[in-house]
């Protein structure tokens, strides 16, 4: 037996049947109890419950056990739980190995009791082998910056930034576009949950509270270019693009500029020039910016306004933060040409409708106010992906509600309009049901289609016609004449979300949105410590849910940075100086520059800077002498695990 006095306790969880229905936990306990070094092996219905944790604590406290194996669910759920339990009992939390016998065993091998039980035994044996060579470790403590970087100046970003600032945290808010407000500002006069106030009001109010707070630095027209460092100490490089404006301007600049492009603020239904004016009352900053990609530097604006300065250069700003919140938002799904009539005159998306209602205070088709409008739901959402390019399988959550909201708004503006809703399920969950009810009360007609028979939109003379089989009416094919067809499109991750995922190495789910660690245990945390996510970058959601998730992310970031220090896992590389001959092979392997050659007495050896080392282990195979090792996962441990897996390791 190696490792001196390693006394191992093995605890096998039933997970209330999730495991024990498939894995014979009694046999696991019996088999691994025979392993050398194991002093106790028990099973328990819920290891993660207080009583289960107490089992571990009692054994550790009494000194009976000084190394622990818990075989339960995924380590990402409860590894930290049991490490904490061991610490509480006075043990070393790193004398621990978490074996997953649920996701990677009972759930994957349901119905194969023998196979699953064998696998569970094998994995616990490997864990025991690991622990026989384990040594007590302690966390690396590092000072943490009391500041947070918030990426994205939309609703979530604004809310999170304001929360943090109010809690006394220094905040850097970076927004890609020239103005704060994001998609929520573009909803404009549309009222949002619980339908007391228009969206723009909320955005304006948040901006008003945020701007001028001394804790807050806002970068608009800016991008996060690079992030390095680690939890508590991120170095962030921000590129700030020039606005080409030094201040405000009197006069109508929009007239001066000859260039034209679609105005994103109104979802492309209006035109703008290359001079981007503050899009709404109370926008920040309140000075214009030039869209330099559109601008041909004709200089007309510079003549009209002394504030224009076309000589401005991009700047790079570096900041140091303790945590990062990614609130990079969504972009509306863009229907393919031909999808539900996209491309025909009079067929627009929900966002375009919203843009038009806000820009023009109404909508006109061929110069006339529409007498009838058809909303087609689930365009680009809830689709089977087989063959269909671009479509999304997920439900975008907000669109039913937004469509109802927009329809009610439309009716307010055009009282006589006839509105048809062609939907699959109306998902006006919770209090939003009242919108559905109101739409019905006011005479909107609801038609439902099935996934197999999506509605078709055609042009007949000067009218549009929507053809749909109504499952509520014996599946008769209805022909709904319409002046306006609104495609209710869902959310997709924004370009900013995709870019930030790439840059920060954040994981994305199958739906493309940023992935949290666990929807209930760690709902705003990412796999990378110190980086949190909020709002629609994470999943489609409405305004209230976006605000809540933003405040939740702020809470997590605040509790991290307010402490003033962070504790990092001790799993970093170290060099066994006696084996190292300073060949420098490891140095070039390290992407973080964490290894350097130092003098150790009479000779030179490699040495690892623990704060910079991320513990990836990339240096390990480089060393010809196996001098460089990873703390908590040494070559010897891995080799023992391999040997023990099939039962040959016992004699080794």
């Amino acid at each position, binding site marked *: 037996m190696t490792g001196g006095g390693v006394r191992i306790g093995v605890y096998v969880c039933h997970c209330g049947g999730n495991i024990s229905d498939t894995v014979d936990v009694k046999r696991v306990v019996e088999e691994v109890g025979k392993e050398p070094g194991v002093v106790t092996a028990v099973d328990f219905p819920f290891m993660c419950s*207080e009583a289960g944790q107490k089992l571990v604590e009692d054994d550790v406290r009494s000194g009976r056990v000084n190394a622990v194996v818990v075989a339960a669910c995924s380590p990402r759920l409860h590894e930290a739980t049991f490490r904490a339990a061991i610490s509480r009992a006075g043990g070393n939390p790193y004398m621990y190995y978490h074996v997953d016998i649920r996701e990677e065993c009972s759930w994957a091998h349901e119905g194969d009791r023998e196979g699953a039980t064998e696998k569970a035994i094998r994995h616990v044996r490997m864990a025991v082998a690991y622990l026989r060579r384990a040594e007590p470790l302690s966390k690396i403590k590092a000072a943490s910056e009391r500041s947070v970087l918030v990426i994205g100046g939309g609703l979530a970003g604004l809310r999170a930034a304001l929360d943090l600032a109010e809690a006394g945290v220094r905040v850097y808010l970076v927004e890609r576009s020239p103005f704060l407000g994001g998609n929520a500002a573009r909803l404009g006069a549309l009222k949002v949950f619980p339908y007391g106030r228009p969206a723009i009001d909320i955005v304006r109010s948040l901006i008003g509270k945020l701007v001028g707070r001394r804790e807050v630095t806002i970068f608009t027209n800016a991008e996060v270019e690079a992030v390095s460092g680690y939890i508590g100490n991120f170095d962030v490089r921000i590129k700030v693009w020039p606005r080409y404006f030094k201040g405000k301007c009197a006069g109508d600049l929009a007239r001066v500029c000859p260039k034209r492009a679609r105005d994103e603020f109104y979802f492309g239904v209006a035109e703008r020039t290359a001079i981007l004016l503050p899009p709404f009352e109370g926008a920040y900053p309140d000075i214009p910016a030039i869209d330099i990609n559109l601008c041909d530097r004709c200089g007309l604006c510079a003549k009209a306004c002394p504030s224009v300065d076309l000589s401005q250069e991009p700047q790079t700003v570096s900041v140091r933060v303790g945590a990062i919140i990614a609130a990079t938002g969504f972009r509306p799904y863009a229907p393919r040409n031909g999808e539900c009539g996209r491309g025909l005159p009079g067929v627009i998306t929900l966002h375009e409708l919203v843009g038009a209602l806000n820009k023009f205070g109404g909508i006109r088709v061929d110069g006339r106010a529409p007498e009838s409008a058809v909303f087609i739901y689930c365009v680009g959402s809830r689709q089977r992906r087989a063959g269909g390019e671009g479509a999304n399988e997920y439900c975008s*959550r907000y669109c039913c509600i937004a469509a109802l909201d927009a329809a009610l708004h439309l009716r307010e503006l055009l009282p006589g309009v006839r509105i048809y809703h062609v939907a699959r399920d109306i998902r006006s969950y919770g209090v939003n049901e009242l919108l559905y009810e109101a739409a019905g009360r006011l005479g909107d007609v609801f038609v439902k289609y099935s996934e197999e028979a999506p509605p078709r939109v055609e042009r007949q003379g000067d009218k549009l016609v929507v053809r749909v089989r109504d499952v509520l009416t014996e599946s008769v094919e209805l022909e709904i004449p319409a002046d306006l067809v609104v495609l209710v499109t869902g959310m997709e991750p924004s370009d900013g979300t995709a870019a930030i995922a790439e840059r920060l190495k954040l994981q994305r789910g199958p739906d493309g949105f940023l992935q949290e660690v666990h929807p209930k245990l760690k709902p705003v945390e990412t796999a990378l410590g110190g980086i949190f996510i909020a709002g629609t970058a994470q999943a489609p959601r409405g305004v209230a849910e976006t605000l809540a998730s933003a405040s939740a992310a702020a809470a997590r970031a605040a509790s991290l940075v307010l402490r003033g220090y962070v504790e990092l896992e001790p799993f970093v590389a170290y060099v066994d100086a006696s084996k190292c001959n300073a060949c420098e092979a490891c140095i070039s392997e390290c992407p973080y520059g964490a290894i350097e050659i130092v003098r150790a007495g009479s000779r030179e050896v490699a040495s690892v800077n623990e704060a910079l080392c991320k513990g990836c282990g990339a240096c390990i195979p480089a060393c010809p002498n196996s001098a460089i090792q990873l703390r908590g996962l040494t070559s010897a441990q891995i080799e023992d695990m391999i040997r023990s897996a099939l039962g040959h390791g016992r004699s080794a």
Partner: protein
Amino acid sequence: MQKILERAEAAGEQLSYDAVVIGGGIAGMEASLSLADMGYRVLLVEREPTIGGKMFLLSKVFPTLDCASCIATPKMAAAARHPNITLWTYSEVRRVRALDRGAFEVDILRKPRFVNESLCTGCGLCEDACPVVVPKELDFGLRGRKAVYIPLDTAVPRKAVVDIDNCILCGQCERRCPAGAIDFTQKPRVYRVRARAVVIATGCRPFPAELKEAYGYGRTPNVITALQMERLLAPTRPYNAVLRPSDGREPGNIGYVLCAGSRDVTAGNPRCSQVCCMYSIKQAQLLLGALPLADVTIYYMDVRAYGKGFEEFYQRARSMGVKFVRGRVARIEGLPNGDVRVMYEDVEEGRLKSAVHDLVVLAVGLLPDNEVLKAFEGVTIHTDELGFVKVDPEDPVRTNVEGVFAAGCITGPKDIPDTILEAAAAAMRCAAFLKEVEARQT
């Protein structure tokens, strides 16, 4: 108990906290933990003898199908252990007075457990000794409990409590307890606590299904609520199997009636309860796992699978063979052999139909558990027509009273992921408020 509580004495101690969190369910726990992690001192008050709220009674939770206990119990343990959290279970908020900006006076009644918490080890011997059996509330009457009992194995604190209303004072538990923890001399005490902020997280109560007369709940034994089904499916369940109440047979054919007490003006609730579709789909999946030969039919109007991963979860249920019938059940009647007939229109076919099930589960909606709002003195917490606390559109955890926040189902029905986000948000907003109050005072 009522009589005993009337004789409650005022406790002499003057306690003060940064925040009092009312309700120890998932929202209250999460809010407390978040506040405590930010360095604030929290008093978490729970009415029941254990924290955990509704969540730790559940089986598994959508859309990940983790066991609810695996999520809830570690949080319960963490809340009980956090150095910044004081946990008072079996305690009721009697009065909340707003004295000033950021100054509340909260009277809290600590009910006697008749068990010395510091002595009790939760061994359960008293339970064995007690001769009184009454229906167990946490199992919705599906099984019995003793007059002295530990609420569930996963309870926090895992301590016994004497149900004095049903206790016959025979003293058997007292004699049996090896720790000498049973103490019938305990008295209720009212503590006056100063707090700078209050978080309301009292959650929801299920719609009382008997109010929907056409569904026969209470008269037809094999019509149960979804919460009862949760208990039948949960790992801490009463029978270790899914059995129907009338004859203890394994049901082979189960019907789910959605919107029982929601989206229904005749039941007084025109709103959607937001979670019933998903928990029904989840239960259907679990039932297909527990009873591989069973048929499960879900009667629905709109399947509201709106959250992250929900639609995929719904599609999975369909592919597993759960039958979805569009049509709201109009009437339910019990048959002499215990089976249950549901009458509905299959809306997609336009046909009047009826079906016979072994067991029918009512997917009951959620109503607010807002008793505590009456305790507020001098200020009124605004609620909507159903009694849910109204919040600010800009700050969906802020009530109309400054310094009072609300999170979880008390502001509207919601699922666990949303509840957790909202609770953390409430903690954040509360922390910002506390910071501001601090700044003004210094």
